[in-house]
């Protein structure tokens, strides 16, 4: 803990900014019900996109006349939880499969890689669109479908990284010692591939917002009235062409979080770069 704190102090301004922003987001997400002046789907005044001065609210109203500030706060909650859930599941699936393929090799590797190739050959949006239409757009289905798509990318990276580690002498030694597959994956491969995977985690995490917002653009996404930034950008996007800048707020929320996460990821990469020679 102290070591972490020390390195954090030396991390430099960008990383500090990143971490502060992320903390603010987390606070907003956790305390949304207490911070928000209105209910999540409460209609303040049915005037679409009323300006702050017209409606007496902080950021104005959205397309149904709900308080935008409230929606952004609740959006933080739903969006971050969803994105985090999806990304974690994707990394779990992708890494386990990738490490497994790399350590066992032969036909297991072949089979998994071919399956991943097949999924990747589908255009992602269509894959999600069709899968969500078949299984319904409930949150668990959505998490699973998007996680599966992301997992294919994670699989590729983790397999490639694990391949390199797998031929190292210390892995051979562990194998001769009679350690199990799971042990090797967890104790030898995981720690040595963590850094590049973390960088990927940051990027993937941010892409999830965009993916959800593209899905909701095509009519499938988080179901209303739950607030979600991606869907909010979609629902309010029309207003932009009328010179109303309400949709900028959720879009900016996504952009700022993306930048913050990447600042922290950059710091992480630099911090751990010294540990190993490559990556």
């Amino acid at each position, binding site marked *: 803990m102290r070591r972490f704190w020390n390195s954090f102090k030396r991390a430099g301004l960008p990383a500090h900014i990143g971490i502060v922003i992320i903390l603010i987001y987390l606070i907003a997400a956790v305390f949304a019900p207490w911070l928000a002046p209105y209910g999540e789907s409460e209609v303040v005044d049915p005037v679409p996109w009323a300006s702050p001065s017209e409606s007496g609210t902080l950021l104005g109203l959205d397309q149904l006349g709900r308080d935008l500030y409230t929606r952004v706060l609740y959006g933080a909650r739903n969006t971050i939880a969803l994105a985090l859930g999806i990304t974690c599941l994707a990394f779990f699936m992708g890494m386990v499969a990738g490490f497994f393929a790399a350590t066992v090799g032969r036909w297991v590797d072949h089979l998994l890689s*071919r399956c991943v*190739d*097949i999924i*990747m*050959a*589908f*255009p*992602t*949006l*269509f894959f999600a*669109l*069709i*899968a969500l*239409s*078949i299984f319904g757009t409930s949150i668990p289905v959505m998490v699973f479908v998007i996680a599966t798509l992301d997992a294919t990318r994670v699989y590729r990276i983790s397999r490639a990284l694990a391949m390199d580690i797998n*031929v190292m002498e210390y892995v051979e030694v562990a194998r001769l010692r009679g350690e199990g597959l799971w042990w090797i994956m967890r104790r030898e491969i995981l720690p040595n591939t963590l850094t590049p995977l973390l960088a990927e985690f940051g990027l993937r995490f*941010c892409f999830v*917002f*965009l993916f959800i*917002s*593209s899905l909701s*653009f*095509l009519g499938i996404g988080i179901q209303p009235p739950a607030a979600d930034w*991606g869907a909010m*950008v*979609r629902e309010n*996007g*029309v207003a*932009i*062409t*009328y*010179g109303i800048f309400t*949709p900028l707020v959720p*879009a900016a929320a*996504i*952009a700022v*979080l*993306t*930048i913050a996460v*990447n600042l922290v990821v950059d710091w992480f990469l630099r911090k751990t770069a010294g540990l190993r020679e490559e990556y």
Partner: protein
Amino acid sequence: MGLTRLIVNRFLFGLITLLAITLLISLALEALPGDFAEQRLGQSATPETIAAIREQLGLNKPVLVRYAEWLGNFLQGDMGISLSNSRPVAELLATRLGNTLFLAVASAIVAVPLALFLGIVAALYRESLLDKMISTITLAAISLPEFFIGYMLVALLAVNWQLFPAISSISDSMSLGEKIYASLLPIATLTFVIVAHMMRMTRAAIINLLQSPFIEMATLKGLKRSRIIVRHALPNALSPIINVIVLNLAYLVVGVVVVEVVFIYPGLGLLMIDSVTSRDLPIVQACILIFGATYITLNMLADILAIICNPRMRHPR
């Protein structure tokens, strides 16, 4: 493994993958609620008319039988006819594919050089204010949804300043110049979307190489930084850069449906969405084949180029 053998190998696996995705899409369409007849009639469906449509189009046969028939015809070069309007799929597809490729090529011509240039500049002036600005702006660009960028460009350039058309409904009767003018906004949108990704990878790959011994040697020899980067670092950093460029090219063909919707650009993505909605299987099959083949071919190309750029990879340990 020799280069030829690798290509043959990848080619065969590519074919198997294509076979698998067409079969999967058939099954998936079957699993979707509502079939072609029900989707076509919507609220006005009656049991009799649904039965009549199924009978007329042979939709009563089991899905695997229909798939086998489709495959048989396809292998003889016949892509079938659309269920909805009985037009040959090949003919329907030709225009749309042409439009999609036009947009992809035009966007790539703008975006790839721009990304390389920005990436090299950022690497050259690493950690400077310029680098940070480029990085932040590109990051922000990545984090905005495509349709949002599209709407912003329309709001500014089409509605406010009336410079470009708001919709890009191009047609065959237009000249190349007219087509380019009509497509400027979608091209700009796509450029925004893909430049960031490619630029970041270019920068990272070059910076990564700058730390390697042979570059340090060159530096010690007193060569100019720009010369080092362009002459020494860039060629050796090519393979990750090519990889990310190729991935983005694939995206330009396969993943631009949202931009097509925003600008009413008559490309393959819109056709595929409509056809999935109406369960018009022959068209969906053809689209998915094109998308799959594009992805597989470009990936293969990336791997082959990587090997050519880096002979060491041809002989792994």
